[in-house]
């Protein structure tokens, strides 16, 4: 399979390079950016979830915490891809070629790329330090000094995670349309990334059980599902908090962003798909899962988790594309799909690399609730 995935990566790279060199460069770079923030968000939020579990002393499943760490394999690749984004700056960000004097202190090329690249590098470095610390099997769990070190790393990681992922929202996405602003957009980006990663964690948890890599009890899978449910609500709450205030205020500089996406085709359809597939259906199913005994079969959970992943990917497309070009079409062409498949393949390959490099033991003893 590694060869197949590698071929898909190569195909994606060729599709992107030919696209970036063609007359549709804006489109190719838009797909690249949507994929970059989506997959990088997944990669860094896995360790962040493990850090939350570390700090809250969550004992309900050490295996789930280990699984969350494994997304970190994509981080080195992500850093390289962030550097690559620099080449698309003039295509993506209008303020590069036409600076806005009132915003030039923040939106200027050197400072923008310094904080983007330095922030990502620092965050990824701390994430790997945390991952290494957590994968030390030889350290007893009650070793106070090591526990203190892990806690410190977890605190730094989480603070950096919130700051850097917020900046991805503010800088990489919001500044595509430099006149539009929403104070919550950074926080919204963090929460939506968190939701996506919990969806991925549900899939990876069920998958690890199915492949015999771990024996996670149904109650622990249920807990992951409950977290997915809670953060789905938080995601919609953050969306609604922005939407309602902008709709009510009816200030043109703010509403323009919403009108493009929610009242004009083809984006209106995408917005509804994101809402129904990413929130309404998962909400309805996960609400049912809150009560009663944990089921033994998890196929519906995997399906709604996939829905969540797909929906947030579409949401990334929705926030990126109309800002880059008012006449942009849905990215459903062969080239667009190939680029996205390339990112997916890169993510899978880098996770495999993580397994071969760090050999994480996933089947840890379950200590109960």
């Amino acid at each position, binding site marked *: 399979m590694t060869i197949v995935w590698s071929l898909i990566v190569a195909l994606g790279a060729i599709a992107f390079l030919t696209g970036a060199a063609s007359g549709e460069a804006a489109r190719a770079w838009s797909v690249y950016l949507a994929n970059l923030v989506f997959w990088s968000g997944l990669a860094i939020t896995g360790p962040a979830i493990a850090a939350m579990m570390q700090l809250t002393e969550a004992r309900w499943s050490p295996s789930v915490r280990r699984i969350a760490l494994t997304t970190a394999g994509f981080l080195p690749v992500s850093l390289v891809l962030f550097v690559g984004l620099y080449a698309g700056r003039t295509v993506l960000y209008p303020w590069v070629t036409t600076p806005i004097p*009132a915003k030039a202190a923040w939106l200027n090329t050197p400072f923008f790329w310094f904080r983007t690249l330095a922030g990502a590098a620092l965050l990824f470095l701390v994430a790997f330090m945390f991952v290494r610390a957590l994968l030390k099997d030889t350290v007893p769990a009650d070793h106070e000094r090591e526990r203190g070190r892990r806690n410190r790393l977890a605190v730094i990681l989480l*603070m950096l995670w919130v700051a850097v992922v917020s900046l991805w929202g503010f800088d990489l996405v919001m500044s595509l349309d430099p006149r539009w*602003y929403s*104070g*919550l957009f950074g926080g919204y980006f963090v929460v939506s990334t968190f939701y996506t990663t919990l969806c991925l964690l549900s899939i990876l948890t069920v998958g690890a059980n199915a492949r015999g890599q771990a024996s996670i009890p149904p109650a622990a899978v249920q807990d992951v599902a409950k977290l997915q449910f809670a953060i789905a609500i938080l995601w919609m*709450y953050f969306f609604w*908090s922005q939407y309602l*205030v902008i709709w*009510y205020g009816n*200030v043109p500089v703010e509403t323009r962003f919403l009108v493009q996406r929610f009242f004009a085709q083809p984006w209106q359809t995408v917005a509804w798909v994101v809402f129904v597939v990413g929130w309404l259906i998962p909400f309805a199913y996960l609400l049912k899962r809150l009560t009663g005994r944990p089921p033994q079969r998890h196929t519906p959970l995997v399906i709604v988790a996939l829905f969540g992943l797909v929906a947030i990917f579409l949401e990334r497309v929705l926030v990126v594309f109309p800002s880059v070009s008012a006449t942009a079409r849905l990215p459903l062409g062969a080239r667009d799909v190939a680029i996205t498949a390339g990112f997916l393949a890169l993510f899978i390959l880098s996770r495999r690399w993580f397994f071969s490099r760090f050999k994480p033991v996933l089947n840890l003893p379950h200590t109960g609730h």
Partner: protein
Amino acid sequence: MMSQSPPTTPTFADVNRDVLRTLGPPGNLYFAWMCVVALVLAWGILAWTGQIWWGMGMAGKRVPQQWAMYITTFVFWIGIGHAGTLISAILYLFRARWRTSIYRAAEAMTIFAVLTAGLFPLIHAGRMWFAYFLLPYPNQRDLWPNFRSPLVWDVFAISTYLTISTVFFIVGLIPDIAAVRDASTGWRRRIYAMLALGWEGSDSQWRHYRRAYGLFAALATPLVLSVHSVVSWDFAMALVPGWHSTLFAPFFVDGAIFSGFAMVLVLVLPMRHFFKLHAYIQEKHLDAMGKLILVTGLVLTYFYLSEIFTTLYSGDEFDKASLFWKVTKSYAWALWLMYFCNCISPLILFWKKARTSPVVLYVVSILVLIGMWFERFNIIVPSLGHAFYPWAWGIYVPTLTDTSIVIGSFAWFFLLFLGFIKVLPSLSIVEVKETLPPPLKDRPHASHH
């Protein structure tokens, strides 16, 4: 003040004895506190009477500062009411067992805080005999021509919150009231028997009780988000510089939880000291509360930074002017005090020693409460005082009347709470027992309740 003896694991019988002891005849200290609180409240009521008699000018209400202290304090008390539901419902659903020792006091605090908050729209409206206009009843009289007004949403959100919180509180109390009933005599027994709703502790009753409790927890959870979000939209929906921000809903909710936890500590730490509840409210509980204050404080700092960032990033001259005015002019002291109390002071809780020290926690909690009151003040007063048109700018100066009423509201809140701790169990007998090892047969300490 708050020294503690090393906690030992209490038995079931100890729990009954220690909790019921808190309902015993009050001492001189209790009466002294009651007198102080009652006197301050009487002063507040006198001030309110004066305001009704002589008019709203007594409260310094002049354009553009029509909201000033009353709405500041209203939002403050609504915020305080958040932690109770969070501790009762969300931490219950998350199976955070440390909540058992503090949730009862937090729930009571929630209800009293919302009752206190509810006074302020009446005080602020002036002619409170028309207050029934606010109640959600059918609209034949067209009293609510504008359902799009967030002020109308407020009425629905807060009355729903108060209803659910009260029912949740009462349901949780039933088994404990039964325990008090069994230990009481005379007229007290009759009253507690009525309140216990015929509780006998049968399997069937427990089953229904558990189911109802879980249901109410699930119902109450979205309210933690909804109530303060709606309150935040009273501001965010307007276009006043400094108000119109998409950040406001989660920012208000986080701030509410932050201040609510601080108030829980302000109430629980003296309770722990005076009722000698160290065996139940242990260092680990203080540690957990300290962590929650730290986390919510950091999130609040994140929102403050996001707010400043957005104002500068937006390029909006009015927003920037409003921010500049807040940071440097008439009310700058209030803004910097708020930053110190809400962003700097909780940082000490990074150290475990601080989180487990009642004195440090108490000081930080008081600072947080001061900071959170000033946060609402800084949102309301300087923003209204420096909006779009220079001819409409204006400074607000507190008067004796509105200051007395605001201080009186604190007295009203503490009066309710002091009354509560002598009438109802301030610690959950049932849930504390659930965290203890079960009594074994033939052990002398086994209790049958």
